[in-house]
C-alpha cells in the first residue's frame, strides 16, 4: 500500500468511490439493481451515485434478479459495462442460469466473438440475525464455473482496487462484499488512482510458524487470531487470495511451504467449497513441506439459524481459530 495513504474510508465508501470513479471515466458503466438509485441500496452502499449519474445510469429494477442479470448480459455484449447489484448473496440462486449458462459461456461458445464485460456485486456473511435465506456465502458456486472470475475483497483498500479492476475486465466478474464490513470496517485508501490485479494473493500479516489462508470476512478473524497467537508465542502469517478465480496458487503454496502448517478459512460452507479447493491445492503443492494436515474452517454445515447463540456458533471466531492453530502447532 502506498505511503501516502492517510485517508481512511469505510468498506462501503471504498466501493462507492470505485464505482463513481469508473462511472466518470467510462460512460458505458451503469448500475442495475433493486433500490440502487434514490435509496442507494438497503445497505446504503451506493448513496449519492444517482445524484451524480442520474437514473439513466443508476437504474432501479423490479425484484427480478434473473431478468435484470440477463439484461445485463445482453447489455454487456452490445457496448455497455453493467454492474449488477444483487442485494443479498442468497439471491444469486435466481441468477445461476444467467450467470453460469449465459454470461460465463457466451465468449467461449461464440468462438471468442462476443464478450460479456459485466460485474455482479453481491454480499456474503452471517451474524447479522437475518436467518437462513439472508446469510449465505455462496461464492463457491461461481468459483466452480469456468468463464467467471470471483473476487472477495477483505479491506476497503482491496475493495476499491479490485472493483475497479473488475469493471475494466472484459469478462463477467462476481464481486462479493461482506455485508458486516460495509460500515464497520475502516481502512486506508489512497486518493490517487490505483487498481489491483486479479490472481495476486496479499500477505496481510507476515509470520513463520503457521499460515492462515483467509478470505473476505475471515481475514479480520484471522488477524485477530494471529494477535492472540503472537501473545502465545506463535507467529502466524495471514494470506488473503483476494480472488478465488483466478487463484494465486503459487503464493499460497509458498507460504505453506515456509510455515509448514496451514489453516484455510472462508465463511462459505467448507464442504465442496472454497476451503476444499484451497486445502487441496496446498496439500498437493506443499506436500513435502507440511508438518500437519491442512485444516479447514468455514461455516458450520447447517442453514444459518436466526437465534443469536446458535448463529454465533456457526462461524469461525478469533478464539476458535486461535485454538485450532495452537492445536495444529502442537500447543494445546
Amino acid at each position, binding site marked *: 500500500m502506498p505511503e501516502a495513504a492517510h485517508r481512511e474510508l469505510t468498506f462501503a465508501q471504498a466501493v462507492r468511490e470505485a464505482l463513481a470513479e469508473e462511472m466518470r471515466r467510462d460512460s458505458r458503466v451503469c448500475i442495475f439493481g*433493486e*433500490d440502487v438509485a*434514490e*435509496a442507494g441500496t*438497503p445497505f446504503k452502499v451506493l448513496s449519492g451515485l444517482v445524484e451524480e449519474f442520474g437514473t439513466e445510469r443508476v437504474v*432501479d*429494477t*423490479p*425484484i*427480478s434478479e*434473473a*431478468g435484470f442479470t440477463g439484461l445485463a448480459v445482453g447489455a454487456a455484449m452490445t457496448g455497455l459495462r453493467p454492474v449488477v447489484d444483487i442485494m443479498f448473496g*442468497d*439471491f444469486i440462486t*435466481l441468477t445461476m442460469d444467467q450467470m453460469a449458462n449465459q454470461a460465463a459461456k457466451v465468449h467461449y461458445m461464440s468462438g471468442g466473438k462476443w464478450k460479456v464485460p459485466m460485474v455482479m456485486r453481491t454480499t456474503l456473511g452471517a451474524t*447479522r*440475525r*437475518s*436467518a*437462513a*435465506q*439472508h446469510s449465505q456465502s455462496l461464492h463457491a458456486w461461481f468459483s466452480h464455473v469456468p468463464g467467471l472470475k470471483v473476487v472477495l475483497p477483505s479491506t476497503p483498500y482491496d475493495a476499491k482496487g479490485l472493483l475497479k479492476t473488475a469493471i475494466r475486465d472484459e469478462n463477467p466478474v462476481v464481486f462479493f462484499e461482506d455485508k458486516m464490513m460495509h460500515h464497520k470496517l475502516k481502512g486506508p485508501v489512497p486518493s490517487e488512482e490505483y487498481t489491483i490485479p486479479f490472481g495476486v494473493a496479499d500477505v496481510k500479516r507476515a509470520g513463520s510458524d503457521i499460515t492462515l489462508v483467509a478470505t473476505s470476512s475471515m481475514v479480520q478473524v484471522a488477524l485477530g487470531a494471529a494477535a492472540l497467537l503472537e501473545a502465545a508465542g506463535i507467529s502466524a502469517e495471514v494470506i488473503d487470495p483476494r480472488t478465488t478465480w483466478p487463484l494465486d496458487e503459487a503464493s499460497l503454496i509458498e507460504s505453506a511451504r515456509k510455515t509448514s502448517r496451514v489453516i484455510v478459512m472462508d465463511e462459505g460452507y467448507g464442504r465442496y467449497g472454497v476451503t476444499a479447493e484451497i486445502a487441496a491445492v496446498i496439500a498437493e503443492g506443499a506436500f513435502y513441506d507440511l508438518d500437519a494436515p491442512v485444516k479447514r474452517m468455514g461455516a*458450520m*454445515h*447447517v*442453514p444459518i*439459524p*436466526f*437465534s*443469536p*447463540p*446458535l448463529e454465533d*456458533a*456457526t462461524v469461525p471466531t478469533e478464539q476458535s481459530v486461535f485454538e485450532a492453530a495452537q492445536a495444529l502447532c502442537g500447543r494445546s
Partner: protein
Amino acid sequence: MTTAAHHPEADSKISVEHWLRMYRQMVSIRLFEEQVNELYTRALMPGLAHLYAGEEAVAVGICEALRPDDYITSTHRGHGHCLAKGASPDRMFAELLGKEAGYCRGKGGSMHIADPATGNLGANAIVAGSVGIATGAAFSAKRLGTNQVAVCFFGEGALGQGVLYEVMNLAQLWKLPVIYVCENNLYTEYTHYSETTAGDIVARGAAFGLHAESVDGQDVRVVHDTATRLVERARQGQGPAFLCCNTYRYSGHHVGDINREYYRSKQEEQRWKSERDPIKLLGDWLSQQKFADSVLFDSIHSQVKSEMEKAVKFAIAAPYPSPEEVEQDVYA
C-alpha cells in the same frame, strides 16, 4: 359505502360475531406489531422485522374464509398472516427473539414462522419464494382429495419474479385449489410499484387464465366476501384465482426504516391512516349498524393489549435453545 348485497351475511347474528371476531383479530395484529416495534426500539429483538400494520384487513379477511386445515404461505411481512391463521402471540414473540419456545425453536425468526398445526407452510424471506410451495400444497390437496385450499400471500414486489407466472400457469392447467393474493401496498422496499410494474396487475393473473379480481384491501368485509367466494370456487374444483388487495403499510419497509420522506410523504401516510384504516372502517360500520359501540371496542383493545404484553413477557423470559441445537434438524 358498500351495500347489503355485497355483505349478504351482514344481518344475521352469527355474522355479527364473525365481524367482531375479525375486528379483534385486526386489533391483535396491530398491537402485536406495536410490541415488535417496541422490542426493536428497546434493542431486545435481534435483527429486523417488517410490520404488517395497516394491512390487517387482508390477512384477516382472507384467513377467516379458510378452514383451520387450509394452507397458507407467507412472506417477510408475515406476522399478520400467521396470527390471522391462528398462531399464538407468545410463541411468535418467542420466535422473534430467537427463543426455544418459538414456533421454529428460534431457528427461523420473524421471516420464517411456520406451523403445521395452523396450516402455515411458512413465511419466506425470498420474494415470491413460497409461490411454488403454495401451489404444491394445492396439488397435494387435489391429489389426496382433502378439499383443502391453499392461499399464497405475497407483496406486489413478487410480481417481478418469473416463478410466479410459472406456477400460475401450472395451477390453471391443473385446476389447483390455490388463491394467489397480491398485497399491493404500493411499495417494494423504497420504490413505488408504478416504477417496477408495467401493464395491469389483474391482467397478469387473467393472462394465465386465472379468475382474477382486485379489491379494496382496507375493507375487511369486501376482502372477506371476495375471499369466501374464491375459496369456495377453488374448493369445488373450479380452479385457482388471483386476488389483488389494494392496501398500505403504515410503517417503514422494516422497523429500522424511519426516515422515508425521500420515497413517500408523511401526508400520504397520514391520509391512509386517517381515512383508510381497516380497523376504524370496520368499527365505524359496526357502530353505524348498531352492532357494537366504543365501549366494546375499548374493551377489545385493552384485552388484546394485556394479552400482548403477557405474550411479550413470556418471550423475554423464555430461554434460548441450547447450543447443541444448532446441528439438529438439518436433516429429517
